[in-house]
Structure formats: structure tokens, C-alpha cells
């Protein structure tokens, strides 16, 4: 017999606490009538035959506006404490309210729950898709959204991709290697902030590194720039065969690419890689002193 004291939830984190955090923030930012409207819709959400989900989800910006949510450092930390790597930094209020709305759905029947959320995707406009994909790390039954997430990576709409790729902990936790590698490749092709991919280093793999080396060669052949952060994904897989590609990057005309190549070499256990880095004493020294790091390089590239 299961113990009465153990509450089994289909969420991977403390969902009740998350809802409380969101509610506190929403009450601060919403006009009383908008908050009331939202409460009413939430109350109708799980009634059989109600269209409250579709209507409230679509009409959200009409009711709550689109202002950027003002969030304190403490509040941001609280979100990340409840759900690791989850952030609502720079979210608009309609996005927050939409995600909150999804967290009000009854999860008793997995099939019904999944179908109700899946129904929203095919009819969603851009901002709705952004909200839906940013909700993935908070939804119940985490494994149920793998296919949807992989499908989202095929989008060509920038903000939608960004919601999946950047600061979203879901993909690295749930995607199989194939879809994960697609996500990273797509991030490079569409020039997303690579340093904002959660789990980038943890999910590094040889297959991805090989594809990225091919990509780097294509770019060189076409006399186009090679994205410096590419070398971060290659670092642990530097071998005799691709060392010359890293060497090419180390002598690139682009400062960022030289720095990235040096950082990659410093992470490699290949003796030839160590030797190559030694030849560039300036970058080598910067790395050892801590003056040059992936984090610092990413910030510099983003103009921060």
C-alpha cells in the first residue's frame, strides 16, 4: 500500500511553490481586473467542454498587456531554486501569465493533459509558441514533450527558436543525442547565444564535434567566418585528424576565434594540442591567469 504521506506528482519540481512565486509576481504587475479575469478563466479551465483554455491563452495580451516583467534579484533566485536553470528574465507579462495558465491544468489523466496542451501548438502565433516552448521545463510528465521540443527546433522563427535554445533547461535534460545535436547546430546557423544553451558542456559529444568540424571547413572554403563558440563544443574531441582545423582557428584574423581555439586547446588532453597552445604564449598566459575564459569570451562577443 502506498503511504498516505507521499504525494506523487507528475512534475519534476515543486510545482505548487512555482505557482505561488508566479502568482505573487503577477499580482504585483497586473491590474485588478486583469487578475480577476485570469482567476475566472483558471476556474473554468478544467470543466468538461469549456473552451476557456483556448480563449484565455489566445486573448492573454489583450487582457494583461505585454510589458516586460519587473523582477528582483531575490525573486529570480527563488525561481532558479525551485526549478534549476529556469529563469523568467526579460519575459513579458503575457508570457508569464500563459505559462502560469498551463500550470493550472488538471494533470490526473496524462493523455488528456498532454492532448490539451498539444492542441495549442498548431494554432499558435509566434508569442504563443514562445510561451509554450518556455513552459516545457515546467510541464508535468517531462518525457511527454520530447517530440514536441524536437519539432520546435525545426522552426525558422527567431524568437521561437530562442525560447527553446536559450536559457531553457528542458532540451539538455530530455532530448536524445540526435535532436540535441540538431539544437546546437541550429543555434550556430541562426547565430544564437551559444553560452546561453543550458547543458552545452555536459551534452558535448563526438558526433556533434565531427559535424561542427565539417561545418567549420565549409565556412572556411566559402571564405566566411567560423563561429568562435564552435570550438567549445569541439574541445574534448580534438584529435590528430582535426587538430589542423583548430590550428587554423588559432591563427584566424578574428580575435574571438583565436581566443576560442586557445581555450579549446587548453581543455584537450592531446599532447599535440598542449604543444600547439604553448606556441602562443600570450593566449596561454591569459588562460592560466583566468583572464580568458569561455564565459568572458561569450560576454565580450555579445558586447557586454
Amino acid at each position, binding site marked *: 500500500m502506498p503511504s498516505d504521506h507521499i504525494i506523487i506528482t507528475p512534475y519534476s519540481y515543486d510545482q505548487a511553490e512555482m505557482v505561488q512565486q508566479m502568482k505573487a509576481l503577477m499580482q504585483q504587475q497586473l491590474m485588478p481586473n486583469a487578475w480577476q479575469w485570469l482567476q475566472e478563466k483558471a476556474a473554468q479551465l478544467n470543466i468538461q467542454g469549456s473552451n476557456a483554455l483556448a480563449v484565455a491563452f489566445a486573448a492573454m495580451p489583450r487582457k494583461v498587456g505585454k510589458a516586460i516583467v519587473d523582477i528582483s534579484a531575490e525573486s529570480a533566485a527563488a525561481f532558479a531554486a525551485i526549478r534549476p536553470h529556469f529563469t523568467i528574465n526579460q519575459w513579458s507579462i503575457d508570457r508569464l501569465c500563459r505559462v502560469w495558465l498551463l500550470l493550472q491544468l488538471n494533470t490526473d489523466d496524462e493523455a488528456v493533459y498532454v492532448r490539451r496542451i498539444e492542441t495549442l501548438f*498548431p494554432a499558435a502565433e509566434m508569442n*504563443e509558441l514562445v510561451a509554450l516552448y518556455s513552459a516545457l521545463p515546467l510541464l508535468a510528465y517531462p518525457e511527454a514533450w520530447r517530440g514536441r521540443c524536437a519539432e520546435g527546433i525545426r522552426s525558422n522563427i527567431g524568437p521561437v527558436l530562442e525560447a527553446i535554445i536559450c536559457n531553457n533547461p528542458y532540451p539538455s535534460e530530455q532530448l536524445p543525442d540526435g535532436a540535441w545535436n540538431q539544437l546546437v547546430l541550429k543555434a550556430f546557423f541562426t547565430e*544564437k547565444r551559444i553560452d546561453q544553451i543550458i547543458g552545452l558542456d555536459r551534452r558535448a559529444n563526438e558526433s556533434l564535434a565531427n559535424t561542427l568540424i565539417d561545418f567549420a571547413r565549409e565556412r572556411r572554403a566559402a571564405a566566411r567566418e567560423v563561429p568562435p563558440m564552435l570550438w567549445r563544443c569541439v574541445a574534448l574531441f580534438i584529435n590528430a585528424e582535426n587538430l589542423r582545423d583548430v590550428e587554423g582557428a588559432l591563427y584566424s584574423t578574428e580575435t574571438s576565434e583565436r581566443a576560442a581555439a586557445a581555450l579549446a586547446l587548453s581543455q584537450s588532453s592531446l599532447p599535440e594540442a598542449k604543444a600547439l597552445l604553448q606556441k602562443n604564449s600570450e593566449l596561454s598566459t591569459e588562460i592560466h591567469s583566468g583572464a580568458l575564459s569561455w564565459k568572458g569570451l561569450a560576454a565580450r562577443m555579445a558586447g557586454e
Partner: protein
Amino acid sequence: MCCHTIDEESLQRGEKWPLYKEQIAGMQFFDPHVHMTSRTTDDYQAMADAGVVALIEPAFWLGQPRTGLDTFRDYYSSLIGWERFRASQFGIKHYCTIGLNSREANNEALAEQVMEILPLFVYKEGVVGVGEIGFDDQTAAEEKYYRLQLELAKEAGLPVQIHTPHRDKKKGTTRSMDIALEHGLDPRMVIVDHNNEETVKEVLDRGFWAAFTIYPFTKMGNERMVDVVKQYGPERIMVNSAADWGISDPLAVPKTAALMKERGISVEDIRLVTYQNAVTAFAQSGQIEESDFSSVKSIDQSQKFAGNTVLRGGQAPRVDKDSVFIR
């Protein structure tokens, strides 16, 4: 929508852009009826260059009938999704109206299903009305779905964009307005489209907005349009291109503005009929912020660097068309 035979002569280039460009330098235009789904990036680029800052894409007939609900759903979804995003890449703010067009209302089995999904779309962000709806052949089925959609618009508090028929236009226009009033719609919430010299007076007299489509061969020419504005003044009149998959001109609004300027219509009146009146009419949806017209440009810039889409990796947003090099 037209079917014109293309011959050698009609393929010759007409008056070149620079000849009227100076006339409209610095002006801003709002094209409240243009089917961008059928147009290329060259058109977006030309429209942006000519001063079109925002537009409305009404849901319409795609040139051949759809056979299932899913293609309707995907079409509506593309109007609020991909097409809106594509426009933003050129710094143009894209709105749409959502509705079941009159031709396809005649497939009643399908029309029933479409009516069921319309409420899911009309409440979406940036949907500024129910449209284009109304009559084509003036059948009973067309009337039925026109009425149902007027009710939908009323419930959602949205303006209505009425397509008036090509054939039996005058009667069709009158009938469209009669029915709208019968359903209790405020004429100020109804934009009657595709007017001509024969219909405009009644539309204005009854308090509706009168839209004119500048479309070669089958609808208004812009010289006639100038005369209409001279005769009726700028109040509640707006100009659009209705550019689509037929031989049409996405620069119809700026070109008409240039012609108005040349023929002595005041700059303020031109602003009203090529920008402000359409903004005022459709802003009754609560979905149009004029400040968005300029912010879409800055969003475009950031998205360019964040990297997207019609722009492939590292691609510049503009191509120099006169350069022989393609890089």
C-alpha cells in the same frame, strides 16, 4: 483577383520609380489590404523603401478551393505566425483579419468546420478584424456565413472588413450594409472594401468606412482614385492595394499618394487616406499601436543579429540588386 491575358506589351516596364519617388519622400503608408503570402521578399523590400510601415493581410481565397479543415487552420496560423515574422524582417508591422471568405462559404460541409475554429483565431494578438467576408456569388450559403461572422465580430468587439462582389457590385454592396445594420453593427466598425464611383456615395452616407482597392484592370485605377478624393474629401476613405497572386501592385498605396500629391491634393488629406483613416478604423480592435510601427524596425535589427530565417546564417538583410556578385 483577376484573369488578364499577358502579352508582350503588358510586360514592358511602366513609369519608373524615381520619377515619383520625390513626391512621397518622408511619407508613411499603411496598406490595410494586401495578401503578402502571395508575394516575394522583393515586394517587402520595395514596400519598405516606399514608406509602407504597416499592413493588414485579410484571410482570403488562395486561388483554388481548399479541401479540408487543416489547410484552413494552417493558413490562418501562417497569417499570425510566419508571414508576420517575415514582414518584421523588413521592418514592416503585419496585422491580419481572420474570416471565412465568401467563395469558400459555398462548401457548406467545410464552412461549418471552419466556423468552429474561427473563435480560436480571432482573439489572437494582432488580429484586427473579421475579414474579408461578404458576398461573391450572393448565394444563400454566403449569406448564412456572412451573418454568422458578423455575430462573431460583434462578440469579439472587432471591426469587420467586407469584400464586395465583382459581379452585381452595387446591389451586393447595399445588401452587405443592410445585413450588417440588421445585426446591430455600428457602421463605424465596418470597413466596406473594393468600392468604386458607383458605390462610394451610399457607403459614406450610411456612415461606413469606404475602402478602395487600386488594382489594375479589374478594380480602381489611381487616376480615378484621385478624382474620388477630390469629390468626396478624405473623411472615412482609405486606399489599399489588395495585391495578391494576380497581376497587382504592392506599391499601389504609395504610388497613389504620389499621384494625389502631383494633382494637388493636400499632404494632410493624403495622410488621411493612405495612412491615418485605416489606422483609426482598425485600431478599434485594440490591437494597433502606432509606436509598434517604429519598434518593429528596431526589433528587426536585433533579430538580424540574433539571426533568423529569411536571413540565413550571417546573411545581410539587404542585397544590392545592381551588383553582379551574389555572395
